[in-house]
């Protein structure tokens, strides 16, 4: 167990430059295998560097197909710099699509509720229409009902004019008479 830990700490020092703790150093003094590992790990950079040229020289030489670069370069020059292709990652794209659909649904529901009359309103309007068409005799009465606010306004106006006349007669000591019966508005 201590050997494994010591070797890991040796590797850590080689890779990250963090000094090996004292307990591992003490273990290394007693353990030949860990000492051998430390020696081996320390020798690796020079060994690899020393043998690298021969290793690369053993690779069979092969030509690079530069003609394909020329073809590709020609195409690129004709097209100019192509924009980067839009890459959609599945999860964010799905989440965005769900959000858009939900938003549209909410908006649509709200607009529908505000714009359309309710079924009760529709029923009342139909009933009113039926009464008008079904009873033509009462049409005049219904018109009178509809006009009643106008007659009431006229009455109120006449009353206020009459009270104004009374005030002026009393105040200025004059007499004001109605010439004729009032004309219809």
């Amino acid at each position: 167990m201590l050997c494994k830990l010591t070797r890991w700490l040796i590797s850590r020092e080689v890779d990250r430059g963090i000094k090996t703790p004292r307990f591992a150093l003490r273990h290394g003094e007693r353990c030949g295998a860990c000492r051998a590992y430390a020696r081996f790990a320390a020798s690796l950079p020079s060994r690899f560097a020393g043998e690298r040229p021969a290793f690369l020289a053993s690779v069979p030489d092969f030509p690079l197909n530069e003609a394909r670069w020329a073809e590709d370069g020609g195409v690129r020059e004709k097209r100019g710099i192509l924009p980067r292709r839009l890459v959609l990652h599945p999860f964010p794209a799905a989440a965005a699509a769900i959000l858009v659909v939900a938003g549209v649904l909410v908006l649509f529901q709200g607009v529908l509720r505000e714009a359309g009359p309710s079924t009760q309103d529709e029923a009342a309007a139909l009933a009113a229409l039926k009464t008008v068409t079904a009873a033509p005799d009462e049409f005049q009465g219904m018109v009178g009902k509809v006009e009643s606010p106008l007659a009431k306004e006229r009455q109120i106006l006449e009353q206020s004019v009459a009270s104004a006349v009374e005030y002026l007669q009393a105040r200025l000591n004059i007499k004001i008479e109605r010439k004729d019966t009032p004309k219809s508005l």
Partner: protein
Amino acid sequence: MVDPDPIATKTDEELAREARAGSRRSFEELALRYKRRLFVYLRPRLGSDQDAEDMVQETFLKLFRNIRSYDPAFQFSTWLYTSASRLAISSYRKKRIASGRLDVETAGALADPEARAAGEAGSAGIWDAARDLGGSQYRVLWLRYGEDMTIEAIATSLGKSRLAVRLLLHRARKSLMKRVCPVPVPVEATKAAAVKGTPLG
């Protein structure tokens, strides 16, 4: 006296910057510098020399296409090996789909028995021993000692965490030690000489 070719004295990053600005000559120099290095990196993964050559060609073609997206803040080798690794993974997946669950590295070792036998019997080179480790252990050793890349750059190239890279390196060193010097060193070897210049020294 003839002056050395000025382009040969430039660093990879300088060449990559020039290639990014449109210099094809600089890109060719980069490709010449890296084609063998990329080949030895990809060869164990792809199984045959031909596949490895094709992958090297594909990698350089991809880099040539995307040279404008190279960020000079990063080392060129990191960018190159990242692209190569991705292409190799993509190629591996395509092959696996085409021929069932084919382990390319195993298939490569079987497809090239002469080279493997030569590696086991004749060559005592440390790089050959490292290549025999196969898989990610060889790749991580190549990037660390062959390309002198930092742990961070290796992690970027391989798409792994730094801890995963360190763990791979540690295992690779232990496996390599077993192959290169399988006989344990006598315990009573001269301790002072044994630890001098090592992490224990």
